[in-house]
């Protein structure tokens, strides 16, 4: 187990280096000039060139990357072109909001998705199953963005129950997390259902029933535990797409998280911020995958090999 963990941890820096180089090159290959975007359409070309030089963007790519990499290793992700504040500070200030949103969304997704999937599997082919499948398809297909606007219009403007924008109180969490949770709930529900169906067909379930165990005990303690492995895998892997979903959700709700920071920074080609947020997000995704693998290894001793 120890060497397993050790090898996984070693992989992280290599992944980060690779990703950082990729992002660094990709955003600079994008058309669009941060200097022109900052100065505005009425600025003369001379002013734009001067701004570019002030921002250090007229140096060669190798020099720029070398500076970025050597600073990054020391924990300095540079200064935002737009706000002139350290990227690390910008991210640190917003990280809790995105994490809070992601955690709430995930909790919702798990507490609704897992039981829903179980019901679908237990009452397979029944109306309950059809209902769960239908809801799962709708949830997976619905545009995050449209749902957010609909929810805002209904619950904030129409009913006035919830705040419209921002993160000023616990009530502000509700609409954004529900919006963000819809897709993961659908995915988790379907995954739970298929996994449960497979498990419920196993011999040991028949044995448990034959033994006279209460249905609740059979489903929760025996079936679910074995069905969990693919579910945990999905939950871990989905974290990346949750960050992606957070980008849209945060933009619509003016949620002060790193998703919105990323959108704004791409709009203005704020290279240091784009690089910083991507690195942080990648680290998060890698960590979540790693955590998921640990949980799986803990659940199933057979998997504790390489």
């Amino acid at each position, binding site marked *: 187990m120890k060497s397993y963990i050790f090898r996984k941890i070693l992989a992280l820096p290599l992944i980060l280096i690779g990703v950082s180089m990729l992002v660094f090159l990709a955003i600079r290959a994008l058309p669009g000039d941060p200097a022109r975007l900052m100065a505005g359409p009425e600025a003369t070309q001379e*002013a734009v060139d001067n701004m570019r030089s002030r921002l250090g963007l007229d140096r060669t790519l190798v020099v720029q990357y070398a500076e970025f990499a050597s600073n990054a290793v020391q924990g300095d992700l540079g200064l935002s072109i737009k706000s002139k504040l350290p990227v690390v500070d910008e991210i640190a200030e917003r990280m809790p909001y995105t994490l809070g949103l992601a955690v709430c969304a995930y909790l919702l997704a798990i507490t609704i998705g897992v039981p829903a999937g179980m019901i679908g599997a237990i009452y397979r082919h029944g109306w309950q199953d059809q209902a769960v499948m239908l809801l799962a398809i709708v949830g997976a297909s619905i545009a995050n963005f449209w749902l957010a606007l609909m929810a805002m219009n209904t619950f904030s403007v129409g009913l006035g129950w919830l705040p419209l924008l921002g993160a000023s109180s616990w009530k502000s969490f509700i609409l954004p997390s529900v919006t963000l949770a819809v897709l993961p709930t659908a995915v988790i529900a379907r995954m739970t259902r298929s996994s449960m169906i497979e498990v419920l067909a196993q011999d040991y379930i028949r044995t448990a029933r034959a033994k006279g165990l209460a249905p609740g005990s059979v489903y929760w303690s025996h079936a679910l535990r074995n069905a969990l492995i693919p579910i945990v895998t999905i939950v871990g892997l989905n974290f990346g797409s949750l960050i992606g979903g957070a980008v849209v959700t945060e933009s619509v709700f003016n949620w002060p998280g790193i998703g919105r920071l990323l959108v704004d920074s791409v709009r203005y080609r704020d290279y240091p911020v784009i690089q910083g947020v991507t690195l942080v997000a990648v680290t998060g995704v890698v960590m979540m995958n790693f955590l998921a693998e640990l949980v799986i290894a803990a659940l199933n001793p057979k998997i504790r090999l390489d």
Partner: protein
Amino acid sequence: MKRIHKTLRRRLVLGCALAIGLSMPLTTHGIALAATLTVMQSEAPRSMDPGDQTATYTAAVLDPIYEGLVRRDPDLALRPALATEWSADASGLVWTFKLRQGVKFHDGTPFDADAVVKNFARHLDTKRGLAASGRLRTFLDNVTAIDPATVQFKLKTQYPAFVALLSTGPCLIVSPTADAAGTIGTKAVGTGPYKLAEYKSGEYVLQEKNAEWWGGAPKGEDKIKWTWTAENSVMSMALQTGDADIVNPLPPAFANQLKNNSDMTVHASDGSAVFWVSLNTKMKPLDDVKVRQALNYATDREGLVRAFMQGYATPSNSPLAPVTPGYDRSLAPYDYDIDKAKALLAEAGYPDGFTMTTIVQEQEARIGELLQAMWAKAGVKLEVRRMEGGVWSKAAFLDPAGKEKDGIGSSIASWSSGVSGADLQLRPLYYSKSASPTGANLGFFSDPKLDELIDKAASTLDEKTRNEVYGEAQKVVNEQAPHVLLFTKQDLYATRVNVNGAWMIPGGLVVVKDAKK
């Protein structure tokens, strides 16, 4: 069995703890919202330094904080602000301004001639390269302090728009201390009725009353909070829930909806943003004036105004906006006449029409689609390329070779010179030296006669004569048709019905420093 329960339980507990823990700081984070006027715009401010940016919406955010030697009042007249009186010598090249006494910047630095000199010196310094310096450098020679209360401006050439410009952008006076410290880009320090309380980058700008303002007690709300969203529907919703007291600009689609809402007031006024299609005069067949005129005849401007702006615009008959001094409302160059368009195209050698492209940003994409349908009737096949903001910006400012390579026949955009005068509308768009990438003459239009007229008008101090020259200039632009001129957008903004005292400078700059709710 026990192990799975423990893991799940542990995770649940951890998750709940995280959620609760994270929400704690939020409840104490709330800003006191009493007596705060919230203004929501469509984009974030680009800088806290009015001299280092050129976007109108940023200028609106900075307006309560900074002042110039003169200011514009709600009746659009220019009045004394940081200067109390001024005069020019006989040549019109030397201007003397007497400065207001007892004024201090928000950081305590005294306002005097030295501060004014430093402000303009930073724009005249070519090494500094501030974004808004361009305009000033074309006509300003130097600024000197005669005594601590008097400054003198020496112009290179007569410039009728000089005093008007002093109320805008690069001429707003910033604290020389903050500028020297290099912090002015993120920490606004001016002399105005409001000072910067907090700038949370990416979130909001909060301003509070300046108790020591030279003008007495500021007339507006205690605090002004500036926010923004890129979503049109969110703007409308925010106004309805009260999350915003003022939204600017209001998308036309929502204007009709909110007009009937008794909780809101929709304000529409003559704007100055002229929308056009810039034709690449170096690319066949757009190098032929007949082809360009044909496109003008093939455009149903009234239809465009109805379809795209819901009627909140004025069809163009001139490169100038109706609010611009010198605008000639008698001009009527192009009716909507498909037959005339076809005839002209045939004359030019394209009886069956031709194919061309246009590049457009998301906000104007629909204009491209509407033109596509209109011009098809005359046989012109318009290929519309929608581009993201940054991508469009790069493509639009390419030089002739670049545009040839990418096949960019035209670009759809708009330009506004506010109320600063016709020179700032005509020179950047039609003057030969303004050809991109240097300036915004995206189609590389070059007409020596027009250049001459523009220069002549720019140095004519007598208003009547000047406007006559601009009349000539408008005729040349109409006739040579480097643009298909579309319409002048009205400035649309909305407030909650209890908000009074907000007003609009043509061009989209909403002034809220005197607004109360």
